[in-house]
């Protein structure tokens, strides 16, 4: 049960009533429904603010998982051009990963995306966005292509995690993710990651090591799902909401921790309420981030990337309680 979908029901009912009244008022121009419509619209706006004005972490988890949330394909479709490139050249083309070359407002880029389905049929085909080793290896191949042809890498992160199945383990899920992370730490082109929905665990991080990380306002990026975390640490799945709060998985939390660079605002009610506006905002932010990264000489870019990851995480010394590190 998605808590956002639940809360949206009252809104959808109001929308319906407003629509009906407007239709009626067109059919009967003699009658005046203006006051009633205005009252409903005010109620709608206030309900919307009430529901979405200040989302909790738990609500953001559900917004990130909303079935209508725009997928990577929505952003890719808005590129100037895009050619999908398939396959890991060894085992299988993983439909949970979309990769290819494209142009973002005139800038040549290589795209790597985790792709959930927009409906049940696509979800089955895309394995609900849970990537297999061959999907990560397709990514690795394309990272190397990007490096060879000096294409900045633009990733879209949207997965509850890497596929946790028998085949994935047999084919080396660990190795596949490890190689992607390693490659992104050293790849000699700018890397720009955007978390657009769920960023779940190492399976998300495999495409998430980047010079700059952008998050959509209601997306999340987490070491584990709140449910999994609650089951492990509280031994009580009912504590998922508390876990969500404590995990600091929202964009603003993660910006505070120095991990995320930019938050792109979503329309009131979430990205799915106005996909075009969301797409436009994210692409604009991506374009300006790419331009900023393109300004840096390559060696400087790589040094800064190294320093950035080298810095994450702090500690204290046993003897003098001296505090070190940035976060």
């Amino acid at each position, binding site marked *: 049960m998605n808590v956002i979908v639940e809360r949206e029901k009252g809104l959808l009912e109001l929308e319906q009533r407003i629509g009906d009244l407007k239709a009626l008022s067109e059919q009967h121009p003699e009658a005046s429904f203006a006051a009633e419509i205005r009252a409903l619209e005010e109620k709608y706006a206030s309900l919307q603010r009430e529901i979405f004005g200040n989302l909790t972490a738990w609500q953001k988890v559900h917004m990130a998982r909303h079935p209508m949330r725009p997928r990577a394909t929505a952003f890719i479709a808005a590129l100037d051009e895009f050619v999908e490139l398939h396959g890991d050249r060894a085992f299988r083309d993983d439909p949970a990963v979309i990769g290819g070359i494209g142009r973002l407002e005139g800038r040549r880029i290589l795209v790597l995306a985790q792709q959930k389905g927009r409906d049940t049929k696509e979800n089955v085909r895309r394995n609900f966005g849970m990537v297999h080793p061959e999907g990560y290896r397709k990514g690795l191949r394309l990272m190397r292509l990007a490096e060879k042809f000096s294409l900045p890498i633009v990733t879209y992160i949207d997965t509850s995690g*890497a596929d*946790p*199945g*028998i085949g*994935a*383990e*047999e*084919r*080396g*899920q*660990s*190795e596949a*993710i*490890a*190689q992607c*992370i*390693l490659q*992104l*730490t*050293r790849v000699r082109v700018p890397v720009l990651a955007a978390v657009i929905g769920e960023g779940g*665990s*190492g399976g998300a*991080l*495999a495409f998430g*090591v980047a010079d700059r990380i952008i998050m959509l306002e209601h997306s999340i*990026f*987490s*070491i*584990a799902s709140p449910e*999994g*975390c609650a089951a*492990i*640490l*509280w031994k009580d799945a009912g*504590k998922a909401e508390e*876990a969500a709060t*404590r*995990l*600091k*998985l929202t964009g603003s939390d*993660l910006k505070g*921790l120095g*991990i995320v660079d930019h938050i792109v605002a979503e329309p009131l009610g979430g990205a799915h309420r106005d996909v075009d506006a969301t797409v436009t905002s994210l692409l604009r932010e991506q374009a300006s981030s790419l331009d900023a990264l393109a300004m840096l000489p390559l060696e400087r870019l790589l040094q800064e*990337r*190294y320093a950035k*990851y*080298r810095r*994450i*995480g*702090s*500690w*204290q*010394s*046993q*003897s003098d309680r001296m*505090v070190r*590190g940035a*976060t």
Partner: protein
Amino acid sequence: MPSVADWLRGRKRQIERREPGLWVKCPGCSETLYRKDLELNLLVCGRCGHHFRMPAADRIVSLIDGEFHEIAADLEPRDPLQWTDVKTYPQKLAADREKSGAVEAVIAGFGSMGGIEIGLAVMDFFFRGGTMGAVVGEKIALLFEESARRRVPAIVCTASGGARMEEGLVALMQMAKTSAALTRLQDARLPYICVLTDPTTGGVSASFAFDADVIVAEPKAVVGFAGRRVIEQTIRQRLPDDFQTAEFLIEHGHVDLIVDRHQLKAQLVQVLSMLLPGTGAGVPA
């Protein structure tokens, strides 16, 4: 950097604080073993060869010739998320410190092994299940950087439940931090060998563990990305017993060698001697 004597003092404390009891039951053959004998046999069952999990300090003593110069020994975790579940994170750390005698889930340092100077990090499953937070990430990263600087190979023995949940995304990002540091060693074309011990999963297996030049596993060690229970819940069926074991991994092409603990040091020395130019077998570089 603490002196060898300091380090040994710490090690003794760890060994002394081990859970008490003179006898241990072997999970491999159900034999009851005398703890002292088991420890003298490198925590390997003399009857069935079962490899017990090994505390980091014991492992280091079993691999290093003589002196071991620990680095970053005094690093202790902070609490970036101010974490609380049924206990606070600092409470958990204190309890593990008390129980295991270790201050964190990894010991890193330098020493010689069969006459070859190496950087060595050993993870400790007895501290927070070997999970990787900022301190573990920092020590592994320092090991790689410092090995590159000293121009010596690095060996990491893993034992880990993955990234440490109580440090949230900061812990997950240690996967990237350790990988970035590893590139320094790779660029210097120095060997990096990973020894996978039971168990190694999640954020550790999916970062520096499987990036090694040569990957060794201990017999029957369980190594994988997702935990067995998670997979069973997802696919709703019981997994075969050998799933994710070292033997399963070698058959599926993921590890180079399975090495018994008694041969581990000799085998590592042999591999290093062939990867390092200008060394005869067992002869210092």
